[in-house]
């Protein structure tokens, strides 16, 4: 069986042929099997986030191929990238990127709006993830009124509502204290047990040394290497 994520000589150059040309990734080749947890380490500016954006179908590579499951996505027009993004990925961002003056429930439902789902289905899904993340009582509250840990869980709930195969987490612990980091990793471990594939970018040793991580890659100046 082919790997879930297959990248072949992926390159990404921003502002090409301009004075401020940036070569964010050069010829990255790697693959991730279904159910794996993979970490990208490296200092900031090393290209971790660019690689995550590419894998997460947020942008297109300048060259190279990328397959997600059976689908070649490197040449896909934007709306189809958005569809893949919606159906396959759940994102946990460095900044939580929640809409602070919307309620917990509304935030969680946002990824479902463009999908053609029945209202009942939407709410049953929301209920499931809210329960899973212990947020049922808080669902009517505004995000701004929640504690940091609760906000973190809302962000995860939002990432899970589409029932994604792959979770992408960009520096998830960067703004968390150690207790919350620990809590987050417990949740992620549960998700891995449920069969989700997880791709991290982090330079937090607590994360990349955690037992749930299967493989580690290190990045430097847009080049990917296997890490020890």
């Amino acid at each position, binding site marked *: 069986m082919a790997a879930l994520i297959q990248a072949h000589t992926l390159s990404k150059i921003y502002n090409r042929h301009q004075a401020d040309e940036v070569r964010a990734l050069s010829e990255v080749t790697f693959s991730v099997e279904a159910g794996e947890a993979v970490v990208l380490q490296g200092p900031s500016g090393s290209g971790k986030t660019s690689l995550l954006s590419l894998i997460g179908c947020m942008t297109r590579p300048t060259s190279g191929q990328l397959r997600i499951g059976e689908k070649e996505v490197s040449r896909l027009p934007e709306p189809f990238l958005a*569809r893949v993004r919606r159906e396959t990925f759940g994102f946990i961002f460095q900044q939580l990127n929640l809409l602070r003056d919307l309620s917990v429930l509304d935030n969680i439902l946002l990824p479902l709006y463009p999908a053609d789902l029945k209202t009942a289905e939407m709410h049953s899904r929301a209920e499931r993830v809210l329960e899973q993340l212990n947020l049922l009582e808080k669902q009517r509250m505004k995000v701004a009124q929640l504690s940091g840990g609760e906000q973190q869980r809302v962000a995860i709930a939002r990432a899970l509502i589409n029932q994604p195969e792959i979770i992408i987490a960009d520096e998830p612990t960067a703004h968390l204290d150690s207790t919350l980091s620990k809590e987050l990793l417990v949740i992620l471990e549960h998700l891995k047990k449920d069969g989700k594939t997880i791709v991290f970018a982090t330079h937090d040793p607590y994360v990349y040394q955690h037992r749930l991580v299967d493989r580690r890659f290190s990045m430097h100046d847009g080049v990917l290497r296997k890490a020890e």
Partner: protein
Amino acid sequence: MSARLKILEHALASMARRKQKNFAIIAVYTLTVATLASILFLTQALRNEAANVLLGAPDLVVQRLLAGHHDLIPKQYAEQIAKLPGVGKVTPRVWGYYYDSLKKVNFTLLGVNDASEPPLLAGHLPTSGRQCALGRGIADTYGVEIGDSLVLVDSKNRTLLYEITGLFSHQSSLLTNDLILLPEAELRRFFALPDSQASDLAVQVYNEQEVSTLAKKIKHQLPDTRPIGKMEILHTYDTVFNWRSGIMLTIFSSALIAFCILAWDKATGISAEEKREIGILKAIGWETSDVLLLKFWEGLAVSLSSFLLGTIIAYLHIFFFGAGVLGPVIQGWSVLFPKFDLTPAIDLYQIFALAGLTIIPYIACTVIPSWKNAVTDPDSVMRS
């Protein structure tokens, strides 16, 4: 369908969150709509009033022309016209204008000689020599009531006192505001008019279809006359009002342009917070078209609420507050019409045209800015 409605829901929610920004645009938008709607409603109302006035007018009025201007018409013309088949009653009318240099106002003096009481008259018509009946406007100008006297200066510069026997009520003010009724014989004396002539002839025509044929015949038999059909007058009014409101709309289109600039500015000047939000939506799986739909709903909500609000304000302004704000602008009309209360009259077409005039420019102004927002890079969220 459900996806679209969800996005509408979200659009309304996010507008509610940004009250300040939307308040400014809705306020100005509403003002623009209210201005334009006021002009339209006022014109339409005046048109209807004119039509109502003409309802009671004679089917055909025959004047005599002398050297191109209106002159007295011999009474025997009436007999000649009455002989034409299809003509009912031919009434010679005697009337004239009177200018009071002291009050600087113009009145119409009309002679009456039959006793049939017109509606909306308090008191009774003048019957003998020095009696008169008045419209409200004149009574207010001089501060007189029934039983008082009115002083007029006749053509021989004699000062005459007339006892007021009747007063028209407010409802008929459009017709009677500047009207003074005198017995016909007295009016002839007042203006020193010869008995054998009249100001014009009011001709009753039974069959509306026949009016134009009769007009042609009268013109043929009496070449020095000018027959004017009721429909012709109505038609002239229509033309004048359309033209007037058009001119005013053109003038006020500058307001529209100012509004468009504001709309463009507001749509372009998107806050960092909003930009981040669109980035988040795109990152979690919204397509460009979903964001465009979101923006479309937002625009529609702004347009419709402002449009509704503006129309209601204009309605109240014109029909409940007597078009106060537009007062100076309709000076031209007040020559044509005295002050009076307008009857509410609006049709679907007016609303349609108004919507076309206000909603389309707004949409046109916001389409490019909202596209610019909608194509925000989804990975901008990750790179921030």
